[in-house]
């Protein structure tokens, strides 16, 4: 058939270059209890925190490939190594973040000012007249041309899609059985808590329940396939979406190497 792998030595050469081929497994970045952005390393059931890449972090989310953080200095995007990809963008207050399917930064919703920002090669730019019409619970970027919001209105959660071009309303639908806090993933999957479970509902409406004996107050992506769950206790949990496994994040007590 004429197709073959050129050589086994390529593998050997790649592994020998340990700096690139063999590294500690890196999940993404997470805001710790001291409001520092720390690298989150490890695999299922075995986590540790890396070095601090930013302090004074108000909100943060990570796709694994990139992270967006709201700091006292403004919005910052950092790469997988924690190095900034942009100058701080002036913004204040709590923020919600969304990433594209490939993990690149996509959208930011600024709660205080009710502004929607989109990430471009030149940095963040404001989306004109973007008003989802309710208290924003979560934001996602299912397509390059639109933003998808979960909003809470009269104790009901709705999905509202808005055009990034002109802020026009594209779609709105009530989501029965969904309550805040909730997270909308870029593929349309919903994550929310119900009774003693976390529920993952795919766009077709199929649900997977994960036993959960805590009270969630916030969900935030901290890596590809990983969601941080802040609870009403001091315990921080991480959920692996693909397996539905829940883990406790070790409390960060000390600085570590980056």
């Amino acid at each position, binding site marked *: 058939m004429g197709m073959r792998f050129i050589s086994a030595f*390529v593998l050997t050469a790649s592994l020998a270059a340990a700096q690139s081929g063999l590294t500690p*497994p890196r999940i993404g970045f997470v805001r710790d209890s001291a409001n520092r952005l720390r690298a989150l390393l490890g695999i299922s059931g075995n986590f540790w925190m890396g070095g601090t890449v930013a302090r004074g972090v108000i909100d943060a989310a990570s796709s694994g490939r990139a992270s967006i953080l709201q700091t006292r200095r403004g919005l910052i995007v950092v790469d997988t190594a924690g190095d900034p990809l942009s100058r701080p963008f002036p913004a204040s207050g709590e923020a919600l973040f969304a990433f594209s399917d490939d993990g690149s930064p996509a959208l930011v919703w600024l709660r205080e000012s009710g502004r929607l920002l989109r990430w471009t090669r030149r940095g963040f730019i404001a989306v004109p007249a973007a008003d989802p019409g309710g208290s924003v619970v979560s934001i996602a970027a299912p397509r390059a041309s639109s933003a998808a919001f979960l909003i809470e209105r009269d104790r009901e959660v709705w999905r509202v899609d808005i055009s990034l071009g002109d802020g026009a309303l594209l779609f709105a639908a009530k989501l029965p059985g969904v309550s805040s806090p909730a997270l909308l993933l870029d593929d349309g999957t919903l994550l929310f808590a119900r009774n003693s479970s976390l529920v993952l509902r795919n766009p077709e409406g199929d649900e997977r329940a994960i036993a959960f004996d805590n009270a969630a107050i916030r969900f935030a992506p901290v890596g590809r396939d990983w969601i941080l769950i802040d609870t009403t206790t001091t315990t921080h949990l991480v959920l692996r979406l693909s397996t539905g496994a829940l883990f406790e994040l070790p409390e960060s007590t000390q600085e570590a190497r980056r």
Partner: protein
Amino acid sequence: MIPRLLFLTAAGVLGAFAQLELTLYDTTNQTESPLDLSQTLDVGPAAVCQTLTPRIRIHNISGSPVEIETLEVAPLGAWRKDSRDPLPGSSFVISSASFRDVWIDFAPPSVGTFPATLTVNNLQLSLTGEGVAAPEVSDIGGKNYCPGDQIYVGRTQVGSTVQTVLKVTNPTQAPVPALVSGKDFGPDTPSTVEPGDTQQVMITFTPSIPNAEMGMLTVNGMAYTLAGDGFVGPLLQPSLQFSANAGLSSNQAQVSIPLAAAATATAAGQLTLSFQPSGTLPDDPAILLTATGSRTTSVLVNPGDTAVHFQAGNPDHCTFQTGTTAGTIAFTLTIGGVTSTASTTIPGALVALDLATAVAQNGTVIVSLAGFDNTHAASRLAFTFYDTAGQTIAPGLIQSDVSGPFSSYYAAHPEAGGAFSLQATFPVSGDISKVGGVDVQFTNPAGTAMTSRLPVH
């Protein structure tokens, strides 16, 4: 008539002056200093909460007994008569050429100057004192303590520890030392509260005898009495129990500590984790208690408890990471004079992958693997690629001795334990879209692990 009456009154007053004389008695040097009633007696600065007690001596310098009908200090508040002095309304007599001592307490309630007047019959002595900033001691319930006060640490079984948290606030401009003394009281090491700071001091009491015991907290030279009660009771009988996954690497397992019988007293203690790696393997820092991010946590039992409770995280059980290195994880519980241990051994295991993907990209297939090798001794990594029809693609098995790269990696990243992530890149000649899947084999001393076939996306 009116001028004459005025003269008589003045004469009577002068007579009283002539009968009595006041001196300040220095208890330490046992000396007396005459007090000039035209001057104000400054008793000196006192820390807020501190009490100064000048001793005033009343001399009867007349030839006959004098009845002291009035002995008072006003205004009250910062000043008061000492409990050794006569009650208001009662009088006493000082014989001729004799004297009587009275004590005046100055206890400033706040920073500031506090004037007062001491009246002895017709004599009036002006007093003043200054309240100055001083370290403050309070408990977490907000109760403030003054030097000399007793602070009750608690009651506990002999050999066990009870503790109480005190807050020491330093409003002064200089560091303030706080030191605990007393045979069964701790901590042994003094702490220092910086100017303007408030620091928590954990006072511990571990009675060695079944009795009431006293200790002392000294803050900037001012002493507070510590008290605790020890008693003999039935010993706790804790047992450490692990969840079923405690013997597997890369797991979050739980340890819980039921008691054979309900506790009869309060006891505080510590649970400590230690790790003994297999053979010459290094320590694995990810083996820790998640609630504290360390290898120790505080535990507690209260009367009636049927299990030891954890003070961080879930009170009923403690989650710990089993890490990614083979070895033995041991727990040592010390509580109520009892030490209990238990361990779980994690044997060397096949390499386990947590993430495995294969992607065709720009004429290459990139295989990404993340997982762990708890032996830290992976020796061989092999790949077999298949086309979309399931046929093996030449050259068939592609294998590599990876012991060198892994050895270097573990030496460079001790924080990772046996966890790793790698990317292997395979240049492909021909139509890369025909590459359908790949099998991965990973060999370490425990054997060879094989993945189920990874689809190439």
